Structures are given as C-alpha cells and as structure tokens.
C-alpha cells in the first residue's frame, strides 16, 4: 500500500486533494506524466492550473475536451504511454449533465433561467461537484487506464466529499420549496407546514431580493421537478467510484503547520468515509542531513570570519545551520501532525528551488517521488 509506484501502475483513479497553495495541480500533473512515461494511457483533469504550466502542457484553452499532450523527451518507453489532459469547465459540464438528464426543451428552459445561470457558476460546491461529474464521464468513456484528478482548493477538507450532497440537497430544495410556496402554487398542505419564521422570512426575502428573482428561483425548481432522484443516483455512483479499490486518494501537503493541520484533517476524513487513501505527498521539503564535522556551523562560521572569509564559507556555514534547523523542525512538524497515523505513507518532494512549469521539471518531481524512471518495463509489454 505504501508503494506509490504500485498505485501509479495499478489504480484506475488517483484523486489529489489538499489545501490551496501546496502544489496540488503540479503533483497531479507530475504523477500523470510519470505514469505515461511508464507506459500507461493517462489523463489528468486539472481545475485551475497556473497559466505557464497549462501553456507548457498545451492546456490553456478551456474547452472542456481532452487534449493529447506530446510526451517529448528522449527517455520514452516502448510501447509508449499516452498523456492526455483537460481543464474543467464548470459551466459546460453542468450544462452537459442537464442535457444528459432531461429532454432538450426542458434543458433549454433551465438554461434560460437567470437563476440557473447564477448557480451553475457560483453555487458553493459546484466546482467540486462538476469535477466529480467529469471524472465519471472520463471513466465511462473507457479510453484511459488512469485518470488523475486535481481538485479545487477547498476551504475546508469537508467541502470536497460533501459537495455533491450539498448541491443535490440544494437542488432538491425541500426547505426552499416550503418557503417559495406561493410561487410554486402548491396546495394547502403546504400552508400548514409553513412556520411563522418561514412566512416572515419569505416576506423579508421578497423585500430584499425583489419578487422577480424569487419567481426565477421558483421556476427553476419547477423545471428540476423529478430530476432530484437522477441527481442522487449520479452522485451515488461517483461516490462509489471514489470509494472503489481501483481508486486512491493522494493528500498533497507542505511541511508547514497550517498545511499539515489541513492534511491531517483530510486523512482522517477520508478514513471515516472509508475512502481509499494512498498516502501523503509532502511537497517542498528541505531535507538537510546532519553531517559529522558540522555539528556547530555557527561557531565554524565565526572562525571563518575571523580568518577573513566572510564571502563564501562563513555565509555557507550559517545557511547550513539555518536550513538544517528548518529541516529538523519540518520533520518534527510532520511527525507531530501525521506521526500517529500509522500506515499512512508520506512521500517527500524536496524543494526544487525552481518553479515547476514544464515537462522536464514535472519529470523531476516524478523522480523525486519515485526514483529514476526504470529503463525497461518490469511489467508485460502492453499497457
């Protein structure tokens, strides 16, 4: 289980989750490149890649369709794998889903509703939900052996797994329909159920937002009538795919306290949801080993300065001391937040000192995680 190369070789879905700013997209891309280099047919689904990374992978167009990324370089395997990539377009994924679920004219009606236009791009959790929807589509297409999914930087660890339920609940909108009864022209049975709070709230809501908006909302829910079960089924099957043994979650973190706290939360949450956790990728670590003879670098630096060397040796010794301390404290921070979670492997990627934005540097990340690319394929010939 602790073997990342095994995950990369055998799993069908890898989901990269984690807090923002720790290199999630980079990790997803690096894993995909590596798997393709090792001969698999891979697609990486990114959410919001940095422009330069997207450009270097040829993914700067946001058209929601998979694109083949050439695996240039001299070390390719035979038979070569394939690398594909795409960037999630939330709105058109939502549209496609609606089209898939209902008749064309009803879909048109929904698309024309101003409220739909709003929620399909801004409702909290929609991006996460659509990432999962797209994952399912790619899985169904059956063209790829491995799908690597990058996820949006969620505000809290809960958001990602909860997103489909949150969005579905919202669309089912029991409470909303209760509130919107006049607009929905519901029967008298509703009347009894409407509490004092709800009635007053409706009054206030109308006052605040204007009745037109509430009408749009009501029409929107009318148009969705009968679709909730389909929504639920769909999110259930994605959930099942995520929980399947062919899937693995990779929690991406950095060795700083704030990121580690969130990473720990992700690990625990995945555990309690019985989701298959692969391990933790610890990005940008500063691994400075202790070396005999350098136990007290500052004292040595003083001696160097005293001997007239203030330009190279003395600052190098001082830096060694500082980075060594960082290294020790990072190790301690990682141990403190993840140490008690036994059998959660942690794979480290040392700070590469340069931005990772092209194929070569993505491969470097892959090497940091998995060692040099094997020269010959250990497994069978075909992928």
């Amino acid at each position: 289980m602790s073997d990342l190369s095994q995950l990369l070789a055998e799993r069908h879905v890898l989901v990269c989750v984690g807090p923002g700013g720790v290199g999630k997209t980079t990790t997803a891309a690096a894993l995909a490149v590596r798997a393709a280099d090792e001969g698999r047919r891979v697609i990486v689904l990114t959410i919001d890649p940095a422009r330069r990374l997207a450009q270097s992978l040829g993914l700067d167009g946001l058209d929601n369709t998979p694109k083949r990324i050439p695996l240039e370089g001299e070390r390719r395997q035979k038979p070569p794998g394939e690398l594909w990539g795409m960037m999630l377009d939330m709105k058109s994924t939502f549209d496609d889903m609606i089209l898939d679920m209902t008749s064309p004219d009803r879909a048109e009606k929904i698309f024309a509703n101003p409220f739909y236009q709003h929620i399909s791009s801004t409702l909290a959790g929609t991006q996460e939900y659509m990432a999962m929807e797209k994952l399912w589509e790619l899985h169904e297409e059956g063209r790829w052996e491995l799908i690597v999914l990058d996820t949006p930087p969620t505000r809290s660890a809960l958001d990602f797994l909860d997103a489909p339920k949150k969005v579905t609940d919202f669309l089912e909108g029991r409470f909303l329909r209760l509130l919107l009864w006049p607009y929905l022209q519901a029967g008298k049975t509703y009347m009894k159920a409407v509490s004092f709070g709800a009635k007053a709230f409706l009054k206030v809501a109308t006052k605040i937002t204007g009745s037109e908006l509430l009408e749009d909302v009501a029409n929107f829910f009318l148009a969705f009538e009968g679709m909730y079960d389909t929504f639920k089924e769909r999110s259930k099957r994605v959930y099942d795919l995520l929980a399947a043994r062919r899937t693995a979650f990779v929690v991406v973190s950095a060795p700083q306290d704030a990121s580690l706290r969130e990473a720990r939360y992700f690990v625990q949450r995945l555990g309690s949801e019985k989701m298959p956790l692969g391990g933790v990728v610890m990005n940008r670590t500063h691994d400075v080993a202790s070396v005999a003879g350098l136990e007290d670098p500052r004292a040595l630096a003083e001696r160097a300065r005293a001997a007239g060397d203030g330009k190279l040796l003395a600052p190098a010794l001082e830096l060694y001391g500082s980075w060594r301390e960082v290294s020790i404290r990072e190790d301690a921070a990682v141990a403190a937040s993840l140490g008690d979670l036994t059998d959660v492997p942690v794979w480290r990627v040392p700070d590469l000192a340069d931005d990772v934005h092209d194929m070569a540097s993505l491969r470097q990340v892959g090497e940091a995680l998995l060692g040099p690319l094997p020269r010959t394929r250990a497994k069978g010939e075909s992928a």
Partner: protein
Amino acid sequence: MIDPLMPASLTASRLAIVSGKGGVGKTTVSAALALAAGRAGKRVLLVEVEQRQAIAPLFGERLIGYEERRLAPNVTAISVEPDEALVEYLYLFYGIGRVGKVLRGTKAVDFATNVAPGLRDILLIGKVKEAERRRQEGRYVYDLIVLDAPPTGRLPRFLDAPRAVTELVSSGPIRQQAQGVLDMVTDPKRCRVVLVTLPEDMPVRETVDAADALAKMGVAVGPIVINSVLPEVFSPSKLKVLAKDAATPLAADAEQAGIRLTEDAVDGLARVTSMHARKTLSQRGAIAELDRETSIPSLHLPYIFSPRMGREEIDRLSTELEAQGMVG
C-alpha cells in the same frame, strides 16, 4: 514618519484588504500588519471571512468567533460568518430579531446566501463596512481594519458582488447596502488591496493579473508585499557558479581559513549552498519580473526559517514592517 495618505504605506487607507495566491502567507502578513499598526497606536480590527480559523493559532488562541475579541494591545479580531452576518443584518435593517433567531441553523441562510448573486459576499463585506463606519464619541472606533481576504482567484468576484447586486436590484435597503459597499471599495482613501506574493514565478504572475483586474474595477492596489524573501548572502556574480558547483570553492576557502572539513562536510555544505544559490537566482528573476510588469511599489518581508508561524514569528515580521515605515 510617513504621511498616512502616501500610497506607499500599508495603512494609507482605513481598510486594508490583504489577498494573494493560496499559500503565500496572506494571514501571516495580515496579522503582522495588525500588530505593527497596533503598536503604532492605531486601534485595529483584524477580520477573517472564510471561516478558516487561520488567525487564531498565530496568536495561540483556539477560536475566533463573531464577537470582536482582543488579541494584542490595540488589536481586536473577528471571524465574520455569513449566517451571523445575515441575522445581524436583518435585525439592523428590518428590526427583525425574532425571525433572525429562528433562521439561525436552518437552511434559510443557505437559501438566502445562495439565491441572490453575491448576497453572501455582500453580507461579509457589509459587516466590514459597518466596522469601518462605526463611530463612538465623534470618532471612528477603528483606525485600521485589516481584512484577511479570500485568495486572489476569488477576490475580484468577492469585491464585485456589490456591483452585481446594484445591477439586479434597483431599490430598497439591500441596494443601498450594496451601493455603500461599492463606494467604500472604490474609494482609495477608505480602501486598498494589499497583494501578498512570494518571490516565485507563479505567485508573481497571479499577482500581476490580480492587480490588473482590480485596477479595472476601480479598486486601489498597493503596496505589494513580497513575502518570504531569502537573504542574499552570496555575491550576485557568483550565484550561477555556486548553483552548479559549490564544493570546489568551499573546500578552497576552508583550507585558506585553516578550517578542516571532511569530504562529507564539504558535500553537505555544498548542497545547501547550491540550493540557496538556485533559490536566490529564481527569486531575483521573479522580483525583476514583478518590477517589469507593474509599477505598484513593493516591499520585502524576510523568509522566516521556521515551518511554524506563531506569535514570535508574527512579531518579527511586524517589527520589519515598522522598520520599513509601512504602518504610518
């Protein structure tokens, strides 16, 4: 002392909206700014809006809630939650106390904050505006409000919410509220966005893009805070050489200084030296890029050699801000 209206100061406006790409240290910089301004005698409110509870651990606290709470001399903090803000809003504008309480914890708030475009954001930033306008005994209660804002990816939408509402709703209290917020964020005397970046390529690009987007919205931007700047300890002309091979010159220097180092020790030193040199080179490139791409003044905060950000580290950074004359 720097003129408080001079745009180079972080406190040139009474509201400083601190944003940046995820992971650049927005919260750290917000906290450091609040502490520094507090020490300079300003009464400061430090605001969190994404319910991340990221400020609390910096001050050794467990939780910061909707109640304004003192964290340090002159520094108060609050975590603005949309449902609390809605209840307060209904109470303030409609005198609806009871309904507000009934609503709390129901899905009505989800409804309200999801239905009207940007209502959630309006509520959050509306609360900030309320604090900014709050007066007591003829003067403002807070001299400076530091908003630990959403990351740059979400910031334009966050700040644009009031405009969206003014376009959708033509009259009534919410329109007024939205207009009030809009007036505040587009008034450079009252509000500016402080963008935090790392001296690295990707955050710099995102910062430049965000600065452009904000300028188009009529929001004042600056100064830019370049956070985690590594110390330049080697001569710039040597960086390229050191990035490739530091062992040879280090061994030579050690011999000259009469310091005996084992091969392993030279090797260990060389590795750190090369890494630092490479990082310094890429840092120089990123800072040069930022200077080229924008005319907004910037300031540097040093890299803190620690993975743990706490009160001590924030204090250091705040002292740095003071020393650079950034808190007026």
